[in-house]
């Protein structure tokens, strides 16, 4: 039982979660009781799926040597790319982007239920595997209207950037823009609070 199984399931890594469930379907395991992982109804064994190698030995070595070893990463590197059905272009991610593989690309039903519907092909399929990173649009609007107009507009521009990069399938760039939008929202809310907390006592004292 490797220690990584106890971490909370992350929606971005849902594919790996799925893969992990496939290789060790333990019924009483606590990870199966979390709401994210109870949804996918996996078959216990699919013959076409490549067997993911076991890295528990390496993990134990890393532990004794006090070294960092990410079993997830190693498993991803060792897993062969998924089979592409006819009619779909191979999806080549931008350089430097970690690729996420699914246990069985031929059966989209085995994907987690949060990606509902079967992916048709191309853009639609890759978008369903990877949900859009948060654009924080609501926060950007609230920050623009209530706190600070200029930096709020910058936040809205970045949330538009998230969306456009996501639609262009630049998922890493979308995530970066999402983080920038978050920062600009934090900046504008903090500026708004500071300016208001400086100004409101002044108006109470002066007139």
């Amino acid at each position, binding site marked *: 039982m490797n220690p990584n199984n106890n971490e909370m399931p992350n929606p971005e890594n849902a594919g790996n979660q799925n893969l992990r469930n496939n290789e060790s379907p333990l019924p009483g395991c606590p990870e199966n009781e979390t709401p994210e992982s109870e949804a996918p109804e996996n078959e216990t064994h699919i013959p076409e799926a490549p067997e993911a190698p076991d890295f528990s030995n390496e993990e134990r070595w890393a532990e004794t040597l006090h070294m960092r070893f990410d079993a997830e990463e190693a498993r991803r590197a060792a897993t062969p790319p998924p089979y592409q059905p006819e009619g779909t272009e191979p999806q080549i991610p931008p350089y430097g982007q970690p690729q996420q593989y699914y246990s069985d690309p031929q059966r989209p039903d085995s994907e987690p239920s949060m990606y509902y*519907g079967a992916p048709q092909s191309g853009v639609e399929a890759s978008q369903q595997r990877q949900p859009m990173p*948060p*654009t924080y649009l*609501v926060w950007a609007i609230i920050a*623009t*209207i209530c706190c600070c107009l200029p930096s709020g507009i910058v936040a809205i521009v970045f949330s*538009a950037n998230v*969306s456009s990069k996501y639609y262009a399938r630049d998922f890493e760039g979308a995530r970066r823009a999402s983080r920038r939008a978050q920062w600009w929202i934090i900046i504008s809310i903090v500026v708004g609070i500071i300016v208001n907390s400086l100004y409101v006592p002044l*108006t109470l004292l002066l007139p």
Partner: protein
Amino acid sequence: MSRLSVRSIAPAALVLGALACAALYFFIDPLSSKWIPKCVFHSVTGWDCPGCGSQRMLHALLHGDLKGAWNANAFILIASPLLALMAFSASFRTRLPRLYRIVNSVPVIIAVGVAILVWTLARNL
């Protein structure tokens, strides 16, 4: 574990906060009260910011005065149902990814930004 408990508490906290805000703006008139914060942008420049009048709008709306709410801040009055839809889709981002993609598509976001700027200009002309 802590993340799960935060998730379960958040909706209740949100509802309680909204009720507290509603009670505050029902019983306190922002125009006569000294303690309700005024808009800094309006006090300094004399112009209305896009959110100016939102507290008066809320007070009028809670007293059933639709016309007063419209006069105080028409933009937020119109935008609040859309904002609620956006907040709903944001809280179900991984559960309903298609709705999130539609609500956060590029034309929608650009329209929101342009609408805020146009409203700011229009109310000051």
